[in-house]
C-alpha cells in the first residue's frame, strides 16, 4: 500500500529535526479560541493537511449561535476537533490528546475533556488579569496547579505573530489576527503535516488582498519555525497514512456532500433542479453550495420564508423539475402543510431537515436527532412520507441520491434527516465514478390514459407495481388536468367527498409508502452469531455506536451492530432482526423516538439509551452502556 498526495509534496518548509519522533496510530486535536479567532478555519486547514497526507479523519466543529459573543467569555468559545489516524476511524474522538487554547475562556471551557497526561498548548499573551476574571479564574491557571496533570506549552502566540509580521507594515491589530495561522504552523510542525496546501489555500483565499495572504503565510511559517527552533517541544509525532480502500479520496463535509448529491441527482435524472429555501442554521451551507452550481441546471431560490421555499419547490416539481427544499426542524414545522399537499398531489419533492437542538429555536448550532417523529407524523391527517437518514458526512451524498430515487419513483415528498454533526463534520470520501451512480431517469406522461375509452387523462391512475401516479407536466397537449389539496376520486381525479373513496385513498397512499423498495438491514457481527445484544442506531450516531462496538469486542464481548438509513418504511427484515437478539439497545440523541416506533410496529422491547446534550455520543460512553447491558444479559 502506498499513498500519494496531490498538491502536498515537501512544501516550502522542511526541517532537520533534532527532536524525537514518535509514531502514533491516532491523534485527536482540539483547536479552541474566541469566536473571532478563526478556529473553524484553523481546524479546517489542519484537516485538509491530514487528508492530503492520507490519514483517515473525522471532525467535530462546535461553535456558538452568536456570531460574535462578548470577547473572551465562555459563551463565545468556538472549537474544532479533528481526529486523524492510520486506520479507518468512525468518530471525531471523545477526548482531545492535544488542546490548543487561544485564551483563558477556551482553556476553561475545554480542559475537562482533556485526559490526564494530555498536551495543552496555550497562548499566554491572552492570560491577562482582565481575561482571567472574565471567565472567573481567581488565579492564573498557568501559575497554580490547575494544569499539573498535563503537559503544558506556554507560547506567546500573539507577541510572536506580531514580531514575525513587524516588517510587513501591517497594523498591530491586523497582525495579531494572524495568530491562528501561527498555531496552525506550530501544530503542522509537531505532526509532520504537509504545508504547501495551506500556503496555496491562503494565497487563493486572499487573492484580492495579497498583503494579507503573505502575512498569514508568514505567521504560519513563524509557527512552524517556532517549533523547529525552540527547545520546548522535545517530541514530534507521526501518524502514518491510513489503509483505506483503494481509490481517489477527498475530504468532504456532510452539507457539501448533500449538495453534491442533489447536483448528481439532477444529472442522473436529467431534470433541472429548483432549491426553494430560507436561510437557517445548520442547513444554510446547502444553499450556499448549490448556488455555486447553476451550470448544472440548478436554480436556487432564497424565498421570503420557509413556506414559500417549499411552495416554490413543489411548484417546480409540478412543472417537471426536481423540487428540493432544505431547512432545520423549525422550518419543517412551517413546511408541514406543503408536505401534506405534496402527499395529496403525489408529486416528487425532497425535503432536507438538518436537525438541530430543539424545541423552538433550541440550540441552533448543536446537533440532535429529535425530529424523527415530526418527520413521521408532523402533519394533519393520514399523511405518510418516506424518511431516510445519512450515517456519516460522506453518506450524505448517497442518501441525497436515495431520497431522490424514492421521490421520483413513487411521486412523493421524501424527508431526509441529516443533523448538525454530520452536516458540519467532515471525513475522507472515496470519490465515486459518475457512471456507477444510480440511473434516475423518469418518463413523463405523454398520452391520455383513461380506461373507459374516453380519451381523457386521469391523473390518479396508478402504476400497479409502485402505486405511483403518472407525472403529466403542463405543456403536454391533451393531458390538461387539475390537482390540488382536496380529496380526489381514485383514478379519474375529480374532487370526491365519497366516504368509501376517501377510505380507499387513505389506504392507497399508505400502501404506496409501505411498499417502497428498501434494502434489507445488514447486521455486523464479527463473532459469527454469538452476540446476544444488538446495538441499533440511525443517523449520525453510526460513528460512536460503531466505535463503541469495536471497543466492546476488543474486550472479548460479542455485540452485533446494525444501522437504519431507511426510517420509513423500515427494511422488510427488521422485525426478524430485532427478534433474533435477547436485547436490542437503541442509543438516540432524543428521548427514544426510534425506540417508540420499533416498539409500536414490532411489539419488541427496546432498551433506549438517550442523551440530548447537543453533542454527539462519545464512544467511551456507549462502550460503558453496551458492556453493562451485555453483562446483564449474560447474567440473566
Amino acid at each position: 500500500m502506498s499513498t500519494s498526495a496531490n498538491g502536498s509534496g515537501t512544501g516550502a518548509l522542511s526541517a532537520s529535526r533534532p527532536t524525537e519522533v514518535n509514531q502514533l496510530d491516532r491523534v485527536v486535536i482540539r483547536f479552541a479560541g474566541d469566536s473571532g479567532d478563526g478556529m473553524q478555519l484553523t481546524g479546517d486547514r489542519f484537516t485538509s493537511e491530514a487528508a492530503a497526507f492520507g490519514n483517515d479523519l473525522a471532525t467535530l466543529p462546535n461553535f456558538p449561535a452568536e456570531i460574535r459573543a462578548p470577547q473572551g467569555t465562555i459563551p463565545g468559545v468556538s472549537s474544532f476537533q479533528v481526529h486523524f489516524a492510520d486506520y479507518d476511524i468512525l468518530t471525531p474522538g471523545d477526548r482531545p490528546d492535544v488542546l490548543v487554547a487561544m485564551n483563558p475562556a477556551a482553556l476553561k471551557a475545554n480542559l475537562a475533556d482533556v485526559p490526564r497526561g494530555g498536551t495543552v498548548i496555550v497562548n499566554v499573551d491572552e492570560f491577562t488579569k482582565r481575561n482571567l476574571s472574565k471567565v472567573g479564574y481567581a488565579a492564573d491557571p498557568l501559575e497554580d496547579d490547575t494544569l499539573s496533570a498535563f503537559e503544558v506549552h506556554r507560547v506567546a502566540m500573539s507577541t510572536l505573530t506580531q514580531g514575525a509580521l513587524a516588517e510587513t507594515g501591517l497594523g498591530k491589530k491586523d497582525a495579531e489576527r494572524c495568530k491562528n495561522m501561527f498555531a496552525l504552523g506550530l501544530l503542522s510542525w509537531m505532526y509532520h503535516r504537509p504545508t504547501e496546501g495551506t500556503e496555496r489555500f491562503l494565497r487563493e483565499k486572499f487573492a484580492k488582498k495579497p498583503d494579507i495572504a503573505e502575512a498569514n503565510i508568514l505567521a504560519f511559517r513563524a509557527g512552524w519555525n517556532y517549533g523547529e527552533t525552540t527547545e520546548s517541544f522535545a517530541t514530534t509525532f507521526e501518524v502514518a497514512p491510513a489503509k483505506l480502500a483503494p481509490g481517489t479520496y477527498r475530504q468532504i463535509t456532510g452539507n457539501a456532500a448533500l449538495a453534491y448529491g442533489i447536483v448528481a441527482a439532477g444529472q442522473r435524472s436529467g431534470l433541472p433542479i429548483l432549491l426553494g429555501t430560507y436561510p437557517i442554521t445548520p442547513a444554510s451551507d446547502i444553499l450556499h453550495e448549490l448556488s455555486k452550481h447553476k451550470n448544472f441546471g440548478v436554480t436556487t431560490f432564497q424565498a421570503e420564508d420557509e413556506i414559500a421555499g417549499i411552495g416554490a419547490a413543489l411548484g417546480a416539481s409540478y412543472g417537471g423539475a426536481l423540487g428540493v427544499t432544505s431547512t432545520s426542524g423549525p422550518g419543517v414545522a412551517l413546511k408541514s402543510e406543503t408536505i401534506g399537499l405534496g402527499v395529496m398531489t403525489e408529486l416528487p419533492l425532497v425535503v432536507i431537515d438538518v436537525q438541530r437542538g430543539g424545541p423552538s429555536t433550541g440550540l441552533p448550532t448543536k446537533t440532535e436527532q429529535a425530529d424523527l417523529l415530526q418527520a413521521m407524523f408532523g402533519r394533519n391527517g393520514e399523511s405518510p412520507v418516506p424518511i431516510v437518514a445519512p450515517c456519516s458526512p460522506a453518506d450524505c451524498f448517497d442518501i441525497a441520491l436515495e431520497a431522490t430515487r424514492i421521490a421520483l419513483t413513487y411521486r412523493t415528498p421524501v424527508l431526509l434527516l441529516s443533523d448538525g454533526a454530520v452536516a458540519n463534520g467532515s471525513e475522507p470520501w472515496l470519490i465515486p465514478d459518475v457512471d456507477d451512480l444510480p440511473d434516475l431517469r423518469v418518463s413523463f406522461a405523454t398520452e391520455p390514459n383513461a380506461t373507459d375509452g374516453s380519451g381523457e387523462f386521469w391523473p390518479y391512475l396508478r402504476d400497479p407495481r409502485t402505486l405511483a401516479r403518472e407525472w403529466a407536466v403542463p405543456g403536454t397537449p391533451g393531458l390538461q388536468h387539475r390537482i390540488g389539496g382536496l380529496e380526489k376520486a381514485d383514478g379519474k381525479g375529480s374532487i370526491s367527498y365519497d366516504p368509501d373513496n376517501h377510505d380507499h385513498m387513505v389506504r392507497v397512499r399508505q400502501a404506496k409508502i409501505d411498499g417502497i423498495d428498501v434494502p434489507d438491514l445488514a447486521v455486523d457481527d464479527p463473532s459469527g452469531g454469538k452476540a446476544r445484544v444488538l446495538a441499533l442506531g440511525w443517523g449520525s450516531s453510526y460513528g460512536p455506536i460503531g466505535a463503541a462496538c469495536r471497543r466492546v469486542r476488543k474486550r472479548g464481548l460479542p455485540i452485533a451492530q446494525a444501522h437504519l438509513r431507511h426510517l420509513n418504511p423500515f427494511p422488510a427484515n427488521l422485525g426478524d432482526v430485532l427478534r433474533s437478539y435477547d436485547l436490542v439497545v437503541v442509543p438516540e440523541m432524543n428521548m427514544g423516538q426510534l425506540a417508540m416506533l420499533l416498539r409500536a410496529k414490532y411489539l419488541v422491547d427496546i432498551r433506549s439509551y438517550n442523551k440530548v446534550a447537543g453533542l454527539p455520543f462519545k464512544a467511551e460512553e456507549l462502550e460503558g452502556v453496551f458492556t453493562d447491558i451485555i453483562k446483564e444479559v449474560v447474567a440473566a
Partner: protein
Amino acid sequence: MTTDLGLPALGGLDLVPGTDEAQKAKDYKSDQEVRWCPGCGDYVVLNTIQSFLPTLGLKRENIVFVSGIGCSSRFPYYMNTYGMHSIHGRAPAIATGLATTRPDLSVWVVTGDGDALSIGGNHLIHALRRNVNLKILLFNNRIYGLTKGQYSPTSDQGMVTKSTPMGSVDTPFNPVSLALGAEATFVGRALDSDKKGLTEVLTAAAQHRGSALVEIYQNCPIFNDGAFDVLKDRDEAERRIIPLRTGEPIRFGPDGDYGVTRSAWGGLEVGKVSEIGEDNLVVHDPAITDTAYAFALSRLGGQDLHHTPTGIFRQVTRPTYDDLARHQVEQAREAKTPDLQALLRGKDTWTVT
C-alpha cells in the same frame, strides 16, 4: 457589492407557444360542475376569462391556473387548462417555482381578499417585489365566504359579521395601494360585472412581462351582498367610477363634469372640470416610473367607493425574477460546461493504491 444582471426585453407571452387553431370559450370549460352559489360574482369572472383566453392565441396546455383556498380558489377546477388548487395563501409561492422553471407557461394565480391579503400577504408582496412573470387575479368580495361569513382584511371597519358581532375594529387594506407599495410593475382594477373593462385589463396583464395584480371587485350574494352595488347602478357609477384611459385626461361624472388634477401638496385630487380648467386635468400615464403617481390615483378611491378608479393604474417595465434567474443559469452554463465527475473530484484529492 452589486453586479449588472443584464436586461432581457420580452413581452409577457413571448416564450409561450401559440397556436393558429381557432379557440372558443367552451374549449376552456372543464367537465366539472361549477359549484359557486347562485348569483356569485365568480360566475361572471369565469365566463369573462373563458371568453378572453382564446384571444391570446396560446396553446391551451401551456396555460396554468394556480389558486390558494377560498371560494375563488376553486377556479382552476373549472378551467380546461392545467391547474393546481393549493394551500391557503401560498399560490404565489408555488406559482413562482413553476414560472421560474417553465418560461413556456402562462401562469395565472387566482386568489381572494383573505387568501392574498391575510394568510398569504407575505407571498403576495414578495411575488410583486420580485416581479415574477405571474398574473395575479385578486377576487375581492370583502368577506370570507367559504368559512361562512367572517370579516376579511378588506371589510369595512364597523362591519358586523359572524366573528364581529359588535362591528369589526380592523382597518381595511386598499389592495391597489398595497401592491404599489410592494413595487408591483402592473396594477389594475375592474368590476366583476364589467366584461369589457375586465377584458381590457386582463389582456394588458397577460401581455405584461412580470407580476400583474388585477383587483376584481366581486359580489358575494350570501355573506356580503351588494357590497359594490353603488358601482353597478348606472347613475351612481357615473358619479363614482373614474375610468383610467392611457393618454386621456382623467374625467368622469355625468357629461364628464368631474376630473382629476394635481393637488396643492403635489398629490392628486378630484374637482369640477369647470373649476379646474380642462388644461389642468391630469393625462393618465401608467408608465410613469415613480410609484407616487399610481399611488395617488389609488388614494382617490376610498373604502366607501365614493370615488373608484378602474383600469390600469401602473404598467412599467422592470426585469423579472424568473428571467434573471434563468439568465444566470445560462450564463453559468456558458462559462463552465457541467462536468459532474470534475465537481465531485474537487481540487484536493489523494489516491490510495
